[in-house]
């Protein structure tokens, strides 16, 4: 899974900590989301998308598992 969190965060001039405060999570969670290392719950995905004034499908890019 890829995300556009970093790109949108830069657009709104937000630090990881600012976004974490808006969403109500720890800064490391934003870092792992940006790196695509953590799959968020639907609620967290919605909260992050709302904080970045976008939608979930624009924020998270899901790649089909070709082996699955």
């Amino acid at each position: 899974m890829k995300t556009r969190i970093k790109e949108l965060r830069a657009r709104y001039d937000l630090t990881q900590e600012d976004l974490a405060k808006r969403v109500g999570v720890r800064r490391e969670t934003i870092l792992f989301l940006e790196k695509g290392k953590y799959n968020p719950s639907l609620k967290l995905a919605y909260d992050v998308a709302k904080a970045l004034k976008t939608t979930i499908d624009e924020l998270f890019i899901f790649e089909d598992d070709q082996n699955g």
Partner: protein
Amino acid sequence: MKDIKGILLGLGIVAAVIVTLSFYVLNAGNIELDEIFPIGIVLILIGSAMYILWDRIKNVKKGLPAQDERLKLTNYKACSYGFIASIWSAVGAPLLSGILFDYEMPGHYVTAVVVLCGGLTFMVSYLYLAWKGK
């Protein structure tokens, strides 16, 4: 408020463990070599617990939550690994001690192994999973 209560509870537990360990060490007289190993594990557990609490305090001071959904998930995973390690050590410790050293392990030793094994597995897996972000 809930975060602060959790941190205070954690600090209380760490303080109680330190006091208990201090009483044990002060009254034990000469500490034998086989006692140093479990004391070392307890010290590692205390150190790790203090690190986790410090990390939570740092986040609360910044206005961030002490625990979020990722850390709750990490906590559940680490708890289940600790539980599995406890179960296996309860069976494996007396068995291995019998096979390797031909020594029948007393019940209180098995209890200590179960607690320390479970605790150490929980701490190691918690810190690893929190660091990896999984």
